[in-house]
């Protein structure tokens, strides 16, 4: 396991093998082998791109849904969580401490679509006691990436 390599990939999954090797002071073969190894071990789960869909007409809506769930005697919230995560509409599922049990982030084309998913799929699900739906109005920062313009570089070209 190479923590520095993970940190670089977490920052930018598109660094080339050559650059990664140089930046870490190891060989390209080592970079490739370590990434494969970490994928196999399940340390690296995937590579994605952060898209600012709001700039396109095809923007989607998403909502954070608080679920209260009756825990099962042996498996607790596990069964409900695993069932919910199977739906394509579901982007994220977390087990939470505090006021509610599962946090589910749902994506859809319209508010209507998301609301329907909550009403028809999540709310009636066995064990689900209550839902509270919070729609996302604007995304400012996601996965460390700023989506609303940043502080920019106001340095000049020359400074000693």
């Amino acid at each position: 396991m190479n923590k520095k390599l993970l940190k670089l990939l977490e920052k930018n999954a598109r660094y080339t093998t050559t650059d990664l090797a140089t930046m870490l002071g190891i060989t390209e073969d080592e970079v490739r082998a370590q990434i494969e190894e970490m994928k196999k071990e399940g340390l690296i789960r995937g590579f994605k791109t952060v898209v600012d869909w709001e700039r396109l007409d095809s923007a989607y809506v998403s909502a954070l849904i608080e679920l209260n769930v009756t825990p099962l005697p042996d498996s607790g919230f596990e069964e409900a969580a695993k069932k919910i995560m199977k739906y394509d509409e579901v982007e994220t599922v977390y087990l939470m401490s505090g006021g509610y049990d599962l946090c589910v982030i749902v994506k859809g084309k319209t508010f209507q679509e998301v609301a329907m998913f909550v009403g028809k799929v999540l709310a009636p699900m066995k064990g689900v006691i209550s839902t509270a739906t919070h729609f996302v109005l604007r995304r400012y920062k996601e996965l460390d990436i700023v989506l609303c313009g940043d502080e920019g570089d106001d340095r000049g070209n020359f400074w000693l």
Partner: protein
Amino acid sequence: MIDYSKKLNSKAAALKPSGIRRFFDISEQMENVISLGVGEPDFQTPWHIRSAGIESLENGKTRYTANRGMEPLRKEIVAYMKRRFNLTYSPNEALVTVGGSEAIDLAVRALVEQGDEVLIPQPSFVCYEPIVALAGGTSVIIELKSDNDFVLTPEQLEEKITDKTKVLVLPYPCNPTGGIMRKEDLEKIAPVIIKHDLMVISDEIYAELTYSGERHISIAEIDGMWERTVIVSGFSKTYSMTGWRLGYALAPDPITALMTKIHQFAIMSAPTTSQYAAIEALKNGDDDIKKMVDEYDTRRRLVVDGFNKIGLTCFEPLGAFYVFPCIKSTGLTSEEFCEKLLYSKKVAMVPGTAFGDCGEGFVRVSYCYSVEHLKEALNRTGEFIKELKGSE
């Protein structure tokens, strides 16, 4: 009409203009310049530090502080020096200044007078010579050599010492070379300094920025040197706080006291908001330093490798955030190289000669830029070198 030339201070008027003014002007006329020419971090000041400054304003902390800086800040500075560099000072031996820049100015003014000689190893930061000149001292330049990674040797030092020599400026980790002085290097020059009863102004503003397992050692830690050393440091580079204008000096009490006296008349006290932010930086900023150093280190490797691949040899700098590649193979002078590169590829680098005549044959490259930016600059520089070779 007033003849201003008769009114102006002749020492100030005689100071050499900065070696980058011309390049600055040229690049101002251009669009889409990819610059590697800036000596300040690209990171923003970490938010918790900015936040502490903002909070102090909200709480109405808008007045002067004690001349020498707030007591809690001086306590934190001293604790930080102990924790990170194993140096022992009392809070009264710390003076909070307007950047490391003011600390350098004060140290020179407190130690140097008419007729004194000050040894300045070069290539190095540009402020030492002018400040010495204004104080009435004489700068004596020691030319550092690339073949020993720009380390100051006892022989080079001994050679320039006269009975007028009073102060040695020790600029490590070094802007522009990225060179450092290891403990064994310092132990070699210390006996010479002691033998000739010299004082040292040690500019350690880049102390936190060292790589490949190197840890900065201060000359003040070497036997017999604490009592001869003024350490200059600051927040600009360590915490990405250049615009806050805050630094400090650490020295034995008689020196700090005199520096404080000058500071009291010239400055009153360093910016209050910045002092509050600095307390937060010292208390809770060690992780920020680590994050930035790790990031600089990956860029450093990328840039060193990039230059060597292009054919501009580049020793591995172990400190600061600069690399100092040699451009002698192009047959151009440093200035010609930088000017041609700027005009033809819109890449900005600083000619080594901006840091002293012995910087000829080198250029300073800052890696305070994103990896994408650095790669683009390296690509363009690579093309430039190819075209130069093709046109021979």
